[in-house]
């Protein structure tokens, strides 16, 4: 495993040097009629509190599988994932997920979708406070006016905002995003990237995000985890993204180092681990 040694350039020191989220020698195999199909093989990753980690790799290499083991929807075949030294065994609101395809309940309004989670996770809070949490988080993503709209009345970007609001309203320790902006048009995607970055700066939640977009990863992340191709995919390389924060997209683009990193990542994805059919 090659690691680009840019740690000394990192101007975003973690809040806390203790490991926060640890993916410890995790392998995952799915049973198939012709024997076990190994998707991931020996994944190790240590994430610090408040870090923004981006995950990139070709389709089918096992990115969703890996994050599903952090969220607890799937169990590792070998190894374990720990959050603050506690082994993860099942899903829970401390690791909220923004799913690949929105997953809002269509018969509930934006408000009700968020409220459902708030009520379930904070059953002891007074009613007024629960309502305030929902309203604050709708405001956070700029959707106060759409509170009473059902998902089918919302655009893709708005739906994804509601999902982010629902996740953050529960004060998760880790926010897991599986290609959250993949289905959005480029303008909306950039808007939401900036919103997410602002929210992350204010909340300092630990983020794990899958993306297919190198520029998105370089704009948002502290580190970019690049995966090799499956089967038996591994972490091929971890790229430190040392740009100072708050980040500005235009200024970032002017930084010569930006293109070094970008080319390095492109080289990894399209030359060293080019997809078979690419």
């Amino acid at each position, binding site marked *: 495993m090659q690691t680009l040694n840019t740690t000394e350039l990192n101007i975003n020191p973690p809040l806390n040097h203790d490991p926060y989220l640890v993916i410890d020698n995790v392998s995952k195999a799915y049973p198939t009629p012709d024997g076990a199909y190994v998707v991931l093989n020996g994944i190790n990753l240590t994430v610090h509190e408040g870090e923004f980690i981006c995950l990139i790799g070709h389709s089918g290499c096992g990115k969703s599988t890996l994050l599903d083991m952090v*969220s607890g*929807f799937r169990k590792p075949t070998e190894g374990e994932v720990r959050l603050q030294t506690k082994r993860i065994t*099942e*899903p*829970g*609101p401390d*690791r*909220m*997920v923004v*799913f690949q*395809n*929105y*997953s809002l*309940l*269509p*018969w*509930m309004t934006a408000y009700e979708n968020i409220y*459902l*989670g708030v*009520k*379930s*996770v904070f059953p002891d809070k007074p009613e007024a406070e629960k309502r305030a949490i929902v309203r604050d988080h709708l405001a956070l993503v700029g959707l106060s006016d759409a509170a009473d709209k*059902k*998902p*089918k009345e919302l655009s893709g970007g708005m739906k994804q905002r509601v999902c982010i609001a629902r996740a953050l309203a*529960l004060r998760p320790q880790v926010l897991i995003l599986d290609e959250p902006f993949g289905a959005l048009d480029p303008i909306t995607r950039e808007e939401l990237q900036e919103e997410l970055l602002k929210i992350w700066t204010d909340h300092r939640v630990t983020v794990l995000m899958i993306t297919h977009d190198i520029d998105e990863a370089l704009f948002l992340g502290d580190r970019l985890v690049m995966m090799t191709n499956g089967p038996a995919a591994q972490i091929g390389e971890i790229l430190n993204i040392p740009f100072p924060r708050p980040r500005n997209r235009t200024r970032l683009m002017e930084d010569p180092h930006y293109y070094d990193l970008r080319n390095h990542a492109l080289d990894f994805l399209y030359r060293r681990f080019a997809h078979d059919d690419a």
Partner: protein
Amino acid sequence: MTARLDARPKRNHQDLVSMLGKQAKVLYPPAIALLIFLVIWQVFTSLPGATLPTPIQTVEETWELIVNPFFDNGGNDKGLFWQVFTSLQRVALGYTLAAIVGIGLGILIGTSTFMFRALDPIFQVLRTVPPLAWLPISLAAFQQANPSAIFVIFITAIWPIIINTAEGVRQIPQDYNNVARVLRLSRTEYFFKILMPATVPYIFTGLKIGIGLSWLAIVAAEMLIGGVGIGFFIWDAWNSSRISDIIIAIIYVGLVGLLLDWLISQIAKLVVPEEQKQG
């Protein structure tokens, strides 16, 4: 309809013509088909050696039944309204029981793979048993006519309700279940906020098939059980060779069946969440 047209003076003469034309397109075909049917019926039953009454004869012979559905001379000698009403009461009871038990069992086998594996094969076999085949068993079990009739309705209507409800539960998108898991929703919360809204269109598909079957079953069940009821009325008419009465009763049965179906559709419209409606 005229009132609606008056209320919108903007509509000009041409609109009126085209609207009447549209109405006609909907109304003419069934009217013509009915007319042709009556003519064929009349022609065939007028042939020498015909065994069934002509439509005109039928109306003549049953005129009393048609114009006076509410008479009550005691015993079985009651107007068609009372006959249908008695049958509907039985259906209401048997069908309501089938709905409650069916939805409950459907949810049970839909949520539990173990229960599904255990019970689905049994259900698949039992659901093909015709209503009349249940009657002797239920008569033997209940020893009484009325509970037996209700049981036959119950057992006939329950299968599509169970099977569709279970299917609905199994079709709940994985995404919704994942949301429930990550939010750690309580069982009640999951039931009312996710399972029910997601399943209710399937439940109503089952309920709609069920109501049709229960109405089919009542006629069969009453034929053998006797007493007041549209089913026995038909059987009784056959035994006393009142063929015209049978024909009128059949028309009643058909119309009431249609009405029941419509009723369930209306309830579905009220209950099924807007987002879950098909089409």
